């Protein structure tokens, strides 16, 4: 197609009037930033949008977890970088949300009011992560309604090894404001956690 062959030349965008995105000068002037103002490494979406909390040795030595809390009150829970499971040979090989009494992956939360969400305690079991030789129980760490578990972990457990701090998150909770206030002082900041574990 004529369109394709013209495109192969990769013309600079702002000089070609046929480009769908062509913006008028006034708008462009507002949009194009001054390259000098831009930081070399901007904050990530997680850093910018959440308050990051960490807990070391939760109920068991080496069971380090994080809680990312959004200003809207929701808490994302996952494994912190120095969790003992990552030290195992081969890392984490599978994840199971079936914790005996119920299979956390089977719940169906619906509606704005989040009906059918399970109300769990900090110490409730959230899931089990398996390594080649052993397994570890992961706890909720926050008391509240369980809104969502990351079901991608079931088919892609390796997400925990590659990006436990982002795509490898484990679950999302909605604690009541009062319940959050009670436990928030048990957590430490990212910097304190880094120092504690000697991470760079």
């Amino acid at each position, binding site marked *: 197609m004529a369109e394709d062959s013209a495109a192969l030349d990769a013309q600079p965008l702002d000089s070609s009037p046929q480009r769908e*995105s062509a913006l008028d000068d006034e708008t462009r002037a507002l*949009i194009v930033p001054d390259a000098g103002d831009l930081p070399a490494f901007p904050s990530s979406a997680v850093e910018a949008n959440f308050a990051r909390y960490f807990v070391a040795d939760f109920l068991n030595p080496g069971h380090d977890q994080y809680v990312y809390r*959004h200003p809207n009150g929701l808490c994302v829970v996952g494994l912190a970088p120095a969790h003992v499971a990552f030290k195992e040979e081969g890392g984490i090989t599978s994840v199971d949300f079936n914790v005996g009494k119920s299979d956390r992956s089977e719940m169906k939360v619906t509606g704005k009011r989040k009906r059918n969400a399970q109300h769990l305690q900090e110490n409730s079991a959230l899931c089990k992560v398996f390594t080649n030789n052993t397994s570890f129980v992961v706890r909720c760490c926050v008391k509240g309604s369980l809104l969502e578990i990351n079901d991608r972990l079931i088919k892609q457990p390796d997400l925990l090894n590659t990006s436990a701090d*982002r795509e490898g998150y484990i679950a999302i909770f909605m604690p009541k404001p009062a319940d959050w206030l009670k436990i928030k002082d048990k957590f430490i900041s990212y910097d304190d956690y880094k120092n504690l574990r000697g991470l760079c």
Partner: protein
Amino acid sequence: MPSINHETASRAMTATGGAAEVDAEARAILQRAAAVASFPPFHAVHHLLSVGVCVRCIFRLCGAFSDACTCLSLTASSLHSFIEEHDDSVKSVSCSCLATDEAYCSICFGVLLPTCYQDGAVEQLHSVTPIDNITSMISQAVQREGYQVDDFSLEISLPAVVAANERAIRLCMKEKYGNANWFSDKMFSQQTMPVKEALRLLLVPSLERQMNVKHGNNSFRIRLMYTHDDGSQKLLNLLPNDRGRKRKAESRDGSSTKRNSTDDDKNILSESDSFINKTLEGIQDQEFCSLFQLPPEKMLKPCHLVISCLRSPIYIGGRYLKLSRNVSQSCWIIDDERMGEASVEEIIGEHVRAICRGDGYKFHAAGREDIDVRMLGSGRPFLVEVLNVRSIPSATEVQQIADKINSSEKKHVRIRNLKLVGSEIWTMMREGEAEKQKQYTALIWTSRPLTDNELHNISLIKDMEIVQKTPIRVLHRRSPLERKRIIHWMEIEKIADGSNYYLLHLCTQAGTYIKEFVHGDLGRTHPSFGVMLSCRAEILQLDVTDVKMDFLQ
């Protein structure tokens, strides 16, 4: 035309115990009425007079009401004289219908005289007829508020007790004359003109003259609200199942005296009007007769009248640009604390409301953007619905609103193409909202530099489907769902060599979360921009550059 209030006139004349003379005008009207087929025999008409029904209500009941009834010499007294001429059984000496007590019509409470009392002193101009008196009160009320009108419609609200009174009179007549050969069930019911209609006939021509505009369409409504507290309360007390209400009204302060707040009383009574209507509907004539005094006792007070005006909303629309990253679209206040510096809604709405001299406003926009996202390009279509404006703004005034906003010091908001529009625009804006495409430019960063080939390949992608789980940042107030959305096209340009920053231009389906498309929302939007290029992508800034909608361009 007599130069004094006709009420006083009829009383003065009957003070001597005799009936008034019938003048030519009144005679003509009475003769015409008497010739109407539905007009009952004179002694029956006299009976109506003697139970306190006013002349105009009599004309109404007999199907003889017309605008001739504005005639001032059509008094109870002259009607009595006319009847006396035609029927020997009626004598003027000591006739009860000529009594001098200050009673008002036992059906309409004098509403058709027309008379009323209002809060505060009311100037009773001597050279003005009662009708013109009321209509000039109305006209003054409209002027006081500063309304400029081209036409008006009249809404009248009467207390439920008026209908009850009419029913009582009708049943009273049926009881007395039901067996007479001239009496038919149609009498006093089907041919009766309702009080509201009669009042309208009396007032509208005068009101048109006073305000110098025609009665017509609905956009400016004048409401006459008549109430009669005593009559309504008495009626309420007579109805069955009323004990609960009575107790409530009495026991508030532990005594049976009236409570302090007159407003509370009025609220209770208007609720009870619908209760009265509903209950009366369910009561058969026989039960009605047993509950009520027939004929009804004479009323010593007229109705209370409240005059209010309301103009139906007008719409002013256009497109707005939002140039600040600290201004929300709609007013955003949590726990008495405002988020951001200001809101587009308040900036535009308040300016519009002030120039139109309206009571309030509602802001409607075609979609919305986050507080930290600017709205650029041709702008986003919006409507301001202004309530109860005192005057409809001219094109010049509308331009003034736009100029005021555009030249404001703060430069948060720009307005384009502001104009007065019809209410159908609101529907147009809502229609097809979900299909409209939006165009954006995002300032993004990638964790590794992108090759020219990659940049080029991005521009080849058309109508790519993504699936977005409800973003975490709105998950607290929206349903957890997976939404399919389409990215129609993308174009990307480098900002500076070696910086890993790019301007991503994209056009998407309505309802697409752009920020989540770039950073992936912890993998909950898939595929995300980062996933497409197997790297981490972050978004620093977002601007809406086009809202593709046809109208308000």
